[in-house]
């Protein structure tokens, strides 16, 4: 059995979308709460990838990324965001993000990225 994908997003529509795209191919853990997401990362060794929503710069998405990286430096984290800015992208990569997907995304796009990282 392949590893699980952890989805952290506070918007139900986005969570449901990712579930729709990925649930046929991967085991998913879905949460709206960043703290709960962090718990999973700490306790569940089977997680192979995190899809993390970040809001506007300066808010807490990037902090969550940092915390995940502290707990599990090797775990790939892909940022999913509606906020397309060079600064945020650079900052995310600097903090160790493996990828950057801008909303609204195509199903293919998500599948591609996840497939690559889950190998």
């Amino acid at each position, binding site marked *: 059995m392949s590893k699980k994908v952890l989805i952290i997003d*506070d*918007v*139900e*529509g*986005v969570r*449901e*979308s*990712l579930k*729709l*795209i990925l649930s046929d191919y991967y085991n998913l853990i879905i949460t*709206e709460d960043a703290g709960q997401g962090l718990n999973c990362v700490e306790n569940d060794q089977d997680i192979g990838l995190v899809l993390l929503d970040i*809001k*506007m710069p*300066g*808010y807490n998405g990037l902090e969550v990324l940092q915390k995940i990286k502290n707990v599990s430096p090797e775990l790939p984290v892909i940022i999913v*965001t*509606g*906020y*397309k800015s060079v600064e945020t992208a650079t900052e995310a990569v600097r903090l160790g993000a493996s990828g950057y997907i*801008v*909303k*609204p*995304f*195509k*199903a293919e796009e998500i599948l591609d990225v996840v497939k690559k990282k889950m190998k």
Partner: protein
Amino acid sequence: MHITIYSILPLTTSIVSISLGLLVLLNNIKAEINRVFFLSSLAVFLWLFCYSICYSTDNEKLANILLWIGCSAVLFISVTYYHFTSVLCYKKKEKKFALSLYYVVLLYLPFSFFTKYFHTGLYKYYFGYYSRVGPFYIYVIIIFMSIISRSLLQLFSTIKLKLLPANQLKQIKYIFLAYFISFFASIDFLPKYHVNIYPFGAVFFLFWSIIISYAILKHQLLDVNIVIRKGLIYSLLIATLTIAYLTLIITIEKLFQNFLGYQSFIISLVYATIIAVFFIPIKNKIQHIIDKAFYKGSTEEIAQENLFLRKEIADKERLKAIATLASGLAHEIKNPLTAVKTFTEYLPSKKNDPQFLDKFARIVNNEVGRIDNLVNQLLDFAKPAPLNLKDTVVEYLIEDTIAFLNNDFIKHNISIVKQYNPNEQHLLKIDQNQFKQALLNLFLNAIEAMSDDGGELIIGIAVKTTASDILCISIQDTGPGIAHEDIKHIFDPFFSKKDTGTGLGLAITQGIIQEHGGKISVETQIGVGTKFKVELPLYSRS
């Protein structure tokens, strides 16, 4: 009848006064204050105009009637003064009293006309006919003096206690000065008791007009502030100079008659021409000085420039707010877009999966609703309706808002603690609908904070006196408080800790308060609660 030198002063002053009154009235005919001011200037006009004719006429019958009209107008002046200052200082009770005084004056009119208690006839002085008064007239003078003193006192206490914002206080200071000086026109009562002096009280009303004109030009008194007409100041100037000119001519004519003992049309013409030749450059010079003192360019240019500047500042602020909003909006709108896009993408392949269709209907509908909601709030925020300012008792508005949310308070087990006296009345000049929305957002925020365990919503009203009076409204909840790192973002558009919120509520509230010239601040303590403080300039209290 020919105009004598004694008529010139009251005649000119009466015309200046009525011109000023008409200008103010026509500038904003809907404003109560402007209408009352017009009444005042009309009364001044009636008084001085009637008397000025009596100084020039030989017709005793005509003089008798005109003197009665003029004399009655004097009492009318005092009542309009009182009415004017009550409106100006927002004294509602005193305004009512002032209105009832009009009836007293109307009652007085037939009494004074048909009986000999107030008016007994006329005196013939060197300057012309003048009123002769009866035994009860002294009471009229006492009432007149009391009413004017009361008006002055009203202005004085408003200035002293700083009951109005600074710019209005500045205007009131000028009004006080103008009305105080005009009080000296009481000198005109003396000839009514057979004291043989020329009633030069009109001089003080000339000063009254000049000071009020100055306040209109410099301090936007009486809302005459859009494009200030140069004509106002020029007509005053020409009126003043004309008095000087006519006085000179008539005096010189008298001198020639008395000392040289002859009267010649040619000589009159010569000196009138000489004076006129000097008169024009003097007029130009003074006009030039006034131009320099009041306006750097022409009036229209300045007014236009001010208008542009104000618009530009407003536009810049708005653009800045919209830029912040737009970036937030992009993020906020992309979440629902993502859901709609993904679900429609899967629709063709999953159209026979009832579970999918259920979810599709629910999610897509929700997300479209979210976008709709966002756009509506954005419109509210980006294009605030112009403020429709009205005198509003803030206590009533708060009670209204509480009543509106009563069910929510009960549902969430929240009790209201009023740290103010609901019977007191603090008057604010605000847009009732927008301000209510601002209050509503704050209340909803408090309800949200206490929705789990209930608590107390503590509402306070206090007046803070610094340079001017500030009304502080505090809205305090006993919720969990706001985390230190979040507190600096709570007024940012799209900052929200709630799943359901758009994060615009407090941003809109802040926008509304600032639009009203006020400010909003927040104090919070984890585990104790959060307190929002709204501060606004106070207009009046009772």
